[in-house]
């Protein structure tokens, strides 16, 4: 039977068919739906870990214990989990172990465009790259065979377009999922120098075997169309090239992107007039080709930035231009993502902007607080950076600066890697204020539970981390909980805490408006008390608009959250219904 599946759902199906028993991940676009789809299979233990490093450790432990296991993350999540991954390369596995990493060329939903293939090379771990959903499933299963055959973890590399495209997938039965026997083997699994020195020898021997495998594997395929131009490609770039060039060129499609073959590439290039390498982001394949003496055209004809496309390839290789039907002949306003109507973060950022504070930001829906009209954030680096970053600012600029400085971080991000920053702040006598924007869910990636929600990925009740107690336990004496829609109270709390020469935490607590448990009713109405001061427009609510006649409420968008009612200085906005 064939089914239309998202690349990510196809990987989950592949994991199921391969007999995977344990999956641990942290959400991150565009990888999140792999783990969400695993939930469909009762045979598999699945969890959201607090961060990618813990997730990788759970998967590594399960593999050593004899289960096929998996961990999935976005490209920047791989940075967080890199530490255990590099050493898991030395220990090898018992049950097969797969890390699925999703890169985001074009940064649809990311803070950078890093190329994860470098990690495969640096950690000496094989990496497969599928080009559609069918291959997502097949390559997942092959990766488990290779992981066990070569005693190595494996990477499956995705890009946004492969992860988030649906295509047809053949659905098959689950294989034998019996645990492999577990035996204590410290020489293999205790990586202290005496053992690791010997394991490094094993890793280098494995690389030699894998180099030989790369020349013979069916993961790499050649399509000889008798042309004089050759294209070497992988993943989404391969399907773009196939669409753009059809049978006008010869193709070497690489399903195994680390290690790359040598002789296969040299033989492919033999007798061709030109060989192009088509790959998004870094010249990973291109530099390999040059290093083995194969002259190729790569980044000089394309780009290091963003995504490739069929038209770009047609232009560069065939010199064909595109004809378009029409184009708007006036500047069009962009439509960036915004905080939803009823978003609890809107109240927090409205107050922060009003107070003119320097705001050390973090990763989540609330990063949208950087956009107009709130314009509240000063920095955003990575998950958890808001707290350490603010401490650094304070250490650099002193006490007075700190009185106008605050960190903002979401509940899930705080659990991910904010807590260690807070420990640093308390331990090293920082006097900063941290605002935890607790919306009771991991929001940006589409509502995943986390240790503060009291529910597991399968919706089962579990222990709930108490943020207030946690902050107090690390030594923060001043912790208070405020509702971000009570803007006056929040303003007072922030003023008091930033001026206090001690560390403090404000938990700005109100659940995400999109949660099913949140039931706002009615809608806002602008009464004739309105003096057109337009203060309500400063909250940046998509349900409010303004023209020469005054303020208008879009009833299709307004959910009656009431923030604008609280913000209006003249009591001119009321709730009805």
């Amino acid at each position: 039977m064939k089914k239309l599946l998202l690349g990510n759902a196809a990987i989950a199906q592949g994991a199921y068919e391969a007999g995977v028993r344990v999956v641990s991940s942290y959400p991150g676009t565009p990888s999140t739906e792999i783990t969400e789809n695993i939930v469909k299979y009762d045979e598999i233990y699945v969890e959201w870990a607090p961060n990618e490093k813990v997730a990788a450790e759970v998967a590594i432990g399960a593999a050593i214990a004899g289960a096929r296991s998996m961990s999935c993350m976005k490209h920047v999540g791989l940075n967080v989990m890199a530490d255990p991954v590099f050493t898991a390369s030395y220990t090898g596995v018992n049950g097969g172990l797969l890390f699925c990493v999703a890169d985001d060329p074009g940064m649809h939903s990311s803070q950078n465009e890093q190329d994860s293939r470098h990690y495969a090379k640096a950690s000496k771990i094989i990496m497969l790259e599928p080009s559609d959903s069918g291959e997502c499933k097949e390559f997942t299963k092959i990766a488990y065979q290779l992981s066990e055959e070569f005693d190595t973890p494996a990477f499956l590399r995705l890009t946004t377009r492969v992860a988030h495209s649906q295509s047809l997938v053949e659905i098959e039965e689950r294989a034998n999922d019996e645990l492999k026997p577990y035996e204590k083997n410290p020489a293999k699994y205790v990586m202290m120098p005496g053992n690791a020195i010997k394991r490094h020898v094993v890793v280098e021997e494995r690389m030699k075997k894998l180099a030989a495998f790369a020349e013979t594997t069916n993961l790499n395929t050649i399509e000889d169309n008798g042309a004089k131009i050759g294209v070497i490609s992988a993943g989404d770039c391969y399907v773009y090239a196939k669409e753009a060039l059809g049978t006008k060129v010869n193709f070497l499609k690489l399903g195994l992107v680390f290690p790359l073959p040598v002789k296969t590439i040299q033989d492919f290039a033999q007798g061709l007039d030109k060989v192009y390498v088509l790959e998004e982001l870094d010249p990973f394949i291109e530099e390999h080709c040059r290093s083995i003496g194969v002259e190729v055209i790569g980044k000089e004809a394309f780009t290091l930035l963003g995504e490739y496309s069929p038209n770009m390839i047609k232009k560069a290789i065939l010199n064909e231009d595109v004809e378009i039907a029409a184009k708007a002949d006036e500047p069009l306003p962009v439509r960036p993502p915004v905080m939803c109507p009823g978003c609890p973060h809107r109240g927090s950022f409205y107050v922060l902007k009003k107070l003119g504070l320097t705001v050390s930001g973090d990763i989540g829906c609330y990063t949208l607080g950087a956009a107009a009209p709130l314009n509240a954030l000063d920095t955003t680096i990575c998950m958890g950076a808001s707290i350490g970053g603010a401490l650094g600012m304070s250490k650099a600029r002193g006490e007075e600066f700190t009185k106008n400085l605050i960190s903002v971080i979401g509940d899930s991000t705080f659990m991910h890697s904010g807590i260690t920053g807070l420990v640093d702040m308390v331990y090293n006598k920082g006097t900063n204020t941290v605002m935890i924007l607790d919306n009771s869910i991991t929001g940006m990636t589409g509502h995943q539970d986390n240790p503060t929600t009291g529910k597991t990925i399968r919706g089962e009740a579990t222990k709930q981390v108490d943020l207030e107690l946690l902050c107090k336990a690390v030594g923060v004496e001043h912790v208070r909980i405020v509702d971000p829609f009570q803007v006056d109270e929040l303003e007072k709390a922030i003023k008091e805490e930033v001026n206090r020469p001690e560390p403090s935490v404000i938990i700005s607590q109100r659940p995400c408006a999109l949660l099913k448990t949140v039931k706002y009713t009615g809608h806002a109405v602008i009464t004739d008390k309105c003096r057109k001061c337009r203060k309500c427009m400063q909250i940046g609510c998509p349900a409010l608009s303004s023209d020469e006649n005054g303020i208008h409420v879009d009833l299709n968008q307004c959910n009656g959250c009431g923030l604008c009612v609280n913000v209006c200085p003249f009591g001119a906005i009321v709730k009805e219904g």
Partner: protein
Amino acid sequence: MGKSIMIVGVGGQGTLLASRILGNAIISAGYDVKVSEVHGMSQRGGSVVTYVKYADKVYSPIIDQGEADVVLAFELLEAYRALPYLKKGGKVIVNTQAMDPMPVIIGAMKYPENIAEKMGKMVDLTAVDALSLAKEAGNIKAVNVVLIGFMAKATDIAYDTWIETIKTTVPAKFLEVNLKAFDLGYNYTA
């Protein structure tokens, strides 16, 4: 036979469900198909673009400029923005809803005027008041299925295939509204 259909709209308008119905109907009709969507920001009121391509064999999941047979737009400005993606001789179907983006809300830019008229002079365009039809069907959220219904006529996929697909794609409690919405779109004449 095959088509490239680009669905554009504003996050929250239900473009993902529309693309799912479309994708499943195409499979039932026996084609190869690819559906490409970008998640992550999709619920947050930003521009949302989904590509649906079907043919005997489909390679690229994305639709490039000058390639779309149909642009199915859930909102006027998003239709206007998507024009360069339309193939010469292609067709635009646009819902007459206008939604202000943030630069307009904060007064930094103006929402372009008379978009439907301007586009009508450039390309083959049908404007549908899908919001009114969705209200008539019983739920304003059914705008997506009204538009799918109207577009369905422009494909070579049979009416019954669409109905069967909606029955298997849409949750049971919304089925009646959505079937009604589909019919209102399917039978709409501009």
